[in-house]
């Protein structure tokens, strides 16, 4: 496969990961932080941006580690431990770098970074990337697309919840209940994108 077809393939994968295969709305990954941090748009944007950044970087790192270290050594089953350690170490490292060089950014983004270590979406993206056997360029597209898709979902959810804060909702449905129903409607909307992308 030549370079330009690979790029085209990566772009398709990127858009698919954002819309039709949205990691939050079709595979339910990252639900915990999605439910807990979608009350305000500002928080959601901060967390979303952090997820986009960490997801793109860690999927690429994990691709390199998996195909260049684990596969040649035939110890693929260690991938869970490897991925977890890579993600945790990367997040820790970034936290220190941001704290040192950009305190303002640290105060807006910093508090979200530790949360991301336990975000299943990050590990999920790494595992999907291995199972679907993406090439390096496709992996870049996939990691970035999944991150943006996750951010899109949490930011729109936060917007809806802010608007809805004053509405009267049945007692048992308040909080997580209504959030899940809205998420379901959103997932329904995202299914509408199916068919926009050919070749999926």
């Amino acid at each position, binding site marked *: 496969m030549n370079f330009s077809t690979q790029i085209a393939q990566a772009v398709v994968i990127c858009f698919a990961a954002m819309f039709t295969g949205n990691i939050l709305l079709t595979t339910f990954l990252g639900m915990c932080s999605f439910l807990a941090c979608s009350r305000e748009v500002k928080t959601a944007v901060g967390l979303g941006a952090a997820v986009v950044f960490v997801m793109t970087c860690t999927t690429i790192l994990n691709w390199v580690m998996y195909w260049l270290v684990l596969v040649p050594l035939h110890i693929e089953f260690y991938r869970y431990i490897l991925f977890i350690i890579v993600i*945790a170490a990367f997040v820790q490292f970034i936290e220190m770098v941001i704290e040192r060089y950009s305190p303002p950014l640290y105060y807006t983004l910093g508090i979200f970074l530790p949360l991301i270590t336990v975000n*299943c979406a990050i*590990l999920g993206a790494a595992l999907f990337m291995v199972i679907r056997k993406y090439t390096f360029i496709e992996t870049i597209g996939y990691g970035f697309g999944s991150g943006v898709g996750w951010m899109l979902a949490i930011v729109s959810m936060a917007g809806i919840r802010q608007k809805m804060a004053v509405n009267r909702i049945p007692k048992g*449905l308040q*909080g*997580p209940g209504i959030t*899940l129903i809205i*998420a*379901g409607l959103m997932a329904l909307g995202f299914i509408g994108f199916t068919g926009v992308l050919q070749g999926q």
Partner: protein
Amino acid sequence: MSPPAKKLTYTNVTLEAIWYNNPIFRQILGICSTLAVTNLVLNTIVMCVALIVVTGLTSLTVSSLRNLTPRNIRMMVETLIMAFYVIIVDIALRAYWPEMSSNLGPFVGLIITNCILMGRSEAFAIVNRPLISMVDGVASGIGYSMVLLVIATAREIFGMGTFLGVPVPFFSGPYWDRWVIMVMPPGAFFMLAVAIWIFRSISTDTEEKSS
């Protein structure tokens, strides 16, 4: 977690984990890694068994090592213990039931980041004796599995008219228009929301948790 501190007997711990403090209804924890496989009952059962095994053994191990684990790296140690058991489950599944392993795809591995595991280790196992921690872990897993099985049963019957792959009389017949939406991802969101709604309306003390 619950307001009055009860005595730590096996019965109390079990009841607490399965009903009063059910991980899904009360704390909305750990739905991430398992909700995706609830479109078929069989997949859900296998996933839940895997989860119960991992939660029980992780709690046991974390609790046995609690006096040896340095306080500031305990999260790392707990994560490694979980990863260890998940790898065992994953390899066992791949060896003895390859089709199921490929059906579940990455979700077995995602048990590692299931919040219930970390939650039970941090909240219970790290400060209690091994045996009772294991009971707590297993009971939490069962409480969680019950809810998921209800969701999976509803989704499979409404969506495909079958239960464990066997056609159900009315729902597989010509009078039932299958709800395709139930098999698709939004169905899981709706079912879970309905389940939470029913539970919270029934349970008398609906004090709102922070989430």
